[in-house]
């Protein structure tokens, strides 16, 4: 199949109104693992308050893309900017360019497998970033953390260890941990994929609340209905390129392009 037919949604037409002021933007992003080129030239802007859903077939490069946004994966080429400032490779920021450390203080991430710190309690997990990275006083960090834990409904679990929590609870703690850094952007990579079906709802509820509060988010998800519901914009990644980009309605409900339709058809079956 001819790939050019997949690029059927011109970026300019799909761009949000405030596109001239992106928080996070990538241009010409490329990434290979060995001989496989996983990302083959990605251009993407994330504007303030925007909720971006990233969908696509397994292995299409969604995780790699989102992991490039906080330099968890180092791109081979292309440019990443945070509020217009270019992101450099090194950990420290230096004249003009943003280091990886500073980038990650502003761009939080929630993982599919939670990755909570098992040797720390729920509260300790949440204050770890503010105390160690942002050097906040412990009491202040705890107050913020308790607020966040209350918001995800887990203030009663403050002294529990992660191993004593259900998957849904773990993921809600992981979200609180990321929020404790007061990030400008939150990256979520299939945050419900590792959960038992009955626990998916409680995590999606938290994410939905964040979206309503105006949190800027990039969400990789296979929950198409959820994406259609909370996202302001959806992109379809296919074989390392953005094959469709537009409103959830345009991309998810009125898909153009053979491969996107085939992909979505699997979810309506």
């Amino acid at each position, binding site marked *: 199949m001819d790939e050019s037919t997949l690029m059927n949604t011109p970026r300019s037409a799909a761009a949000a109104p405030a596109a001239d002021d992106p928080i996070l933007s990538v241009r010409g992003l490329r990434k290979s693992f060995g001989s496989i080129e996983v990302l083959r030239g990605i251009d993407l802007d994330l504007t303030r308050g925007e909720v971006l859903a990233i969908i696509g077939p397994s292995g299409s490069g969604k995780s790699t893309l989102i992991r490039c946004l906080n330099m968890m994966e180092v791109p081979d080429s292309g440019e990443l900017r945070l509020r217009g400032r270019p992101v450099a490779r090194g*950990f420290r920021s230096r004249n003009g360019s943003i280091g990886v450390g500073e980038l990650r*203080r502003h761009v939080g991430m929630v993982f599919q497998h939670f990755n909570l*710190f098992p*040797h720390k309690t729920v509260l300790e997990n949440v204050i770890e970033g503010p105390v160690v990275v942002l050097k906040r006083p412990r009491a202040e960090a705890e107050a913020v953390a308790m607020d966040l834990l209350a918001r995800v409904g887990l203030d009663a679990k403050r002294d529990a260890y992660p191993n004593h929590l259900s998957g849904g609870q773990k993921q809600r703690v992981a979200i609180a941990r990321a929020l404790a850094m007061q990030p400008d952007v939150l990256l979520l990579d299939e945050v419900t994929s590792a959960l038992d079906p009955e626990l998916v709802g409680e995590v999606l509820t938290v994410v939905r609340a964040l979206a309503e509060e105006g949190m800027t988010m990039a969400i990789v998800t296979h929950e198409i209905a959820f994406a259609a519901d909370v996202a302001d914009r959806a992109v379809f990644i296919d074989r390392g390129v953005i094959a469709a980009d537009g409103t959830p309605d345009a991309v998810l409900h009125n898909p153009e392009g053979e491969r996107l339709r085939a992909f979505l058809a699997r979810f309506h079956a």
Partner: protein
Amino acid sequence: MYHWDFQVVVQSWDLFLIGLWLTLLYTVGSIVLGVVIGLLVCFARLSDFAVVRIAARSYQEIFRCTPLLVQILWFYYALPLLIGVSIDNSVAAILTLSLYVGAFYAEIFRGGIASIERGQHEAAAALGMSGGQAMRRIILPQAAKRMLPAFINQSVIQFKNTSLISVISVGELAYMAAVVNGETYRPLEAYTVVAVLYFLLLFPLTQMADRLERHLRVSD
């Protein structure tokens, strides 16, 4: 029927006491130095530079794959010929013991660190932690817990291994037993006393290690 006579041994209690003291000194000393060496070599093994990794690995394999007894003799008798300076037997002893146990510790530390899932490194990094912060706050505390049983086991072996430095006349327990035996011709009593002393010190230690291990497993 053998006639046990501990009287001759009791008369030499001061020798056994000195021997015990030196055994403890060389054990603790070589363990402390070994931990320092082990940590340095462990981080060298995780280095970005191939030369550093290979050097660390070579050191480890040399000390792990040759007998400690041969190493002790080599450092005391052979090394002075190479460098042209004679080495005190106590220096050769502590040097060899520390380098020997350091090679094993490095492997225990490296294994412990490597056993921590990639997700832990990523979660720490995603919060903006530097490599050092992630190591200190997230990786090492978890790794330490996992490597504790192997660490204690190696240290118990080290305790017993100090007896080998008697071959270069360091006056620790085994050497003192040989001295007492030479004076009294009572090998059975002399070596039994030494064995009992080792056992009395190490048995509580292994019991404690077992309990600690069980405790750590529960708190997980």
